[in-house]
C-alpha cells in the first residue's frame, strides 16, 4: 500500500467519522460541571486563605462548623410516595463529588411508619405520583410526576437543584440566609424565601410564585423578577397571572406539609435524648449506608474533608441508633481534632449515646473525649490520652 493510499484509508475510516463527532454539553451537564468547578475553586480559595493565615484556627474551625451545619441542612431528604415506592440506587447517582447525599424514606405500604430510608441525590416521581421531600428544615418540595429532580453542589448555606422534568412545588425558608437555586430547561430560578413552582417540559420551563418573589435567568442570560401571583415561561419570555390550577396546587402543597410537619421532621430535628430513647425503628437499609460510609472513607483518604464531613453527618443523622452512626460521629470528632477544633469534637462526641454497645467504639470514644477535653493530650491526673 502506498503512502497516499494509506493516508486515504486512515482519512476515510478514522479521521472523517471522528470529525463528524461533535461533543456537546447539555444544559444539565453544563450546570453540573459549572458547579463542580465552582466547588473546586472554593476549596482552592479556602486552602490559599488557610496557608496565608496559618494561625487563624478559629476561622477554619468556624468554616468547618458552617460546613457541618450546611451538611445538616442538606443531608436529610425525607420523602413519601404513594403505593408504588421506587427508591433509586443511591451513591451511584451522585451527580458530582460535592453534591449532598440525600436521605430518602418511603412510606411504602405500611401505614404510619417509614419502611425504608435511603440516601440519594435524586428524587423520582412516576406518572400520577407525588413525591414529597424535605432538605433539612428549610426546603420542602413536592415533585409531581412524571419527573425527576437532583441535587447539585452549592456554596455554603445554599441549596441547588436540577429539575429535569415534572412539576416541582417548593416552599423555601430563607430566613437563616443562603439561597435556593433551581436549574430547569431554559431557566435558572434563584430564591431567597418563598412558595413557588417550577415546571420543566418539552418547550422549556414555567415558574409560578404564590408567596414572595423569585429571580429567574433565561437561556439568554436575562433576569426576570417573578412576584407573588405571577407566572413566567421560558418559551414566551413574559409574565402572566398564575393559573388557578397551579395556585391551588401550591396551596395544597403547603397545607399538606403543614399538617404533616411532625411526621416529616428529619431525625436531626428531634432532641437527641428523646430520639435516642425512641424504639429502634428500621431506619436504614444497611447496605446503602455502608456504601455511603465507604464514600466517606474514600473522601477522607483523598483529603476531601468537606465532602467527608457532609457524608458522615448524613450517616450520623440517618443511623443515630446504630453503630454506623456512632462510628460516623467518632470520625467527625477525629476530623475536628485533626483541625484543632476541640469544641466541634466535643459536640460530635456529645451526640453519642451515653453507653456504646461496641467495646471498641466505646474505647475509641473515651480516647477521643480525653483528647477533646485536654489540649495537651494528657487526661485526668496528667496521664496521657494514648496514641
Amino acid at each position, binding site marked *: *500500500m502506498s503512502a497516499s493510499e*494509506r*493516508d486515504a*484509508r*486512515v*482519512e476515510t*475510516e*478514522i*479521521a472523517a*467519522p*471522528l*470529525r463528524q*463527532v*461533535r*461533543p*456537546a*454539553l*447539555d444544559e444539565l*451537564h*453544563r450546570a*453540573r*460541571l*459549572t458547579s*463542580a*468547578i*465552582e466547588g*473546586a*475553586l472554593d476549596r*482552592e*480559595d479556602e486552602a490559599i486563605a488557610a496557608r496565608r493565615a496559618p494561625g487563624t484556627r478559629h476561622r477554619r474551625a468556624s468554616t468547618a462548623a458552617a460546613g457541618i451545619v450546611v451538611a445538616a441542612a442538606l443531608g436529610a431528604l425525607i420523602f413519601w410516595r404513594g403505593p408504588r415506592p421506587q427508591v433509586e440506587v443511591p451513591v451511584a447517582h451522585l451527580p*458530582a463529588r460535592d453534591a449532598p447525599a440525600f436521605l430518602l424514606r418511603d412510606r411504602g405500604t405500611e401505614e404510619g411508619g417509614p419502611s425504608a430510608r435511603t440516601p440519594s441525590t435524586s428524587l423520582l416521581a412516576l406518572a400520577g405520583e407525588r413525591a414529597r421531600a424535605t432538605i433539612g428544615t428549610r426546603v420542602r418540595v413536592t415533585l409531581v410526576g412524571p419527573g425527576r429532580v437532583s441535587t447539585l453542589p452549592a456554596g455554603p448555606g445554599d441549596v441547588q437543584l436540577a429539575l429535569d422534568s415534572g412539576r416541582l412545588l417548593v416552599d423555601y425558608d430563607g430566613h437563616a440566609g443562603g439561597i435556593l437555586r433551581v436549574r430547569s430547561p431554559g431557566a435558572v430560578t434563584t430564591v431567597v424565601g418563598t412558595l413557588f413552582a417550577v415546571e420543566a417540559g418539552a418547550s422549556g420551563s414555567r415558574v409560578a410564585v404564590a408567596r414572595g*418573589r423569585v429571580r429567574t*435567568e*433565561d437561556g439568554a*442570560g*436575562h*433576569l*426576570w*423578577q417573578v*412576584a407573588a401571583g*405571577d407566572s413566567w415561561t421560558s418559551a414566551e*419570555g*413574559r*409574565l402572566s397571572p398564575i393559573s388557578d390550577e397551579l395556585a391551588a396546587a401550591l396551596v395544597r402543597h403547603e397545607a399538606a406539609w403543614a399538617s404533616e410537619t411532625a411526621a416529616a421532621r428529619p431525625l436531626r430535628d428531634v432532641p437527641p435524648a428523646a430520639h435516642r430513647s425512641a424504639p429502634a425503628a428500621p431506619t436504614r437499609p444497611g447496605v446503602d449506608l455502608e456504601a455511603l460510609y465507604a464514600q466517606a472513607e474514600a473522601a477522607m483518604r483523598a483529603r476531601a474533608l468537606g465532602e467527608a464531613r457532609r457524608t458522615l453527618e448524613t450517616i450520623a443523622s440517618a443511623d443515630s441508633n446504630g453503630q454506623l452512626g456512632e462510628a460516623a460521629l467518632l470520625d467527625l470528632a477525629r476530623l475536628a481534632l485533626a483541625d484543632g477544633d476541640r469544641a466541634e469534637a466535643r459536640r460530635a462526641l456529645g451526640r453519642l449515646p451515653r453507653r456504646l454497645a461496641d467495646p471498641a467504639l466505646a474505647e475509641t470514644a473515651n480516647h477521643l473525649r480525653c483528647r477533646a477535653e485536654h489540649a495537651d493530650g494528657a487526661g485526668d491526673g496528667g496521664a496521657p490520652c494514648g496514641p
Partner: protein
Amino acid sequence: MSSSPSPRRSTVAASATDANLVAAAAGGDRGAFAELYRRHLDSVYGRLTRVIGPTAELDDLVQQIFLDVYRALGRFRGDAAFSTFLHRIVLNVACEHLERRHRARGRNEPLEARQVEALIAPGASPEQRARQREELACLFALLEGLSPKRRAAFVLVAIECMPLEEAAALLEANPAAIKQRVLEARRELARALERAPEQESP
C-alpha cells in the same frame, strides 16, 4: 412588579475581552473567572473528549483543567491569546491522563456509556444508536493504540484540521515535530486497520 429583563452580569463583564477578564481574575475577581470558564467550557469539553475519548474521567479532568488555569493565572503574561494558554493546559492534562492510563491499565480503556451516548445525534433510532456506539468504540479503540503525543497531534491536525503551526503552538513543539507525529500516527493507524479484520475473523 419589575418585569423587564436585565443583563445577567454587569455589561463590563459581559462585554469584556478575555484579556480583561484574565486581568480581573488574576486580581481576585471570581466573577471574572466564572465568565471566562463559562465562555470556554464547551470548547474545553469538546477538545478533551476528542483527545482522550468519552471516558468516565472527563468531568473530573475538565474540573482539573479550570483549577489549573485558576492557579496559573498569575503566570499568564498575555504573549498569546488566553484560548491558546487555556488549550495548552487542556492538552497537557489530556496527555498526562493518557500516559497515566497507559501505565496503569494498558491500552484498553473502557468507554463511559453515558459519555458515548452524548456523542450520538439525538434523533437517531435505537438501531442507529447501537451501530454508532459500536463504531465510536472501534474508532476510539484504534486511537488508544497511539502514544499520547502522537494521538494529540493526530486529533488536532487530522481530525480538527488545525494548521501545523497552530497545533505546534498548543503542543509546545515545532511544526516539523508535529508533522512527524501525525505521519507516524497515520502509519500506526493504517497498520491497525489492516490488522483489524484479522482480529475480527473467528
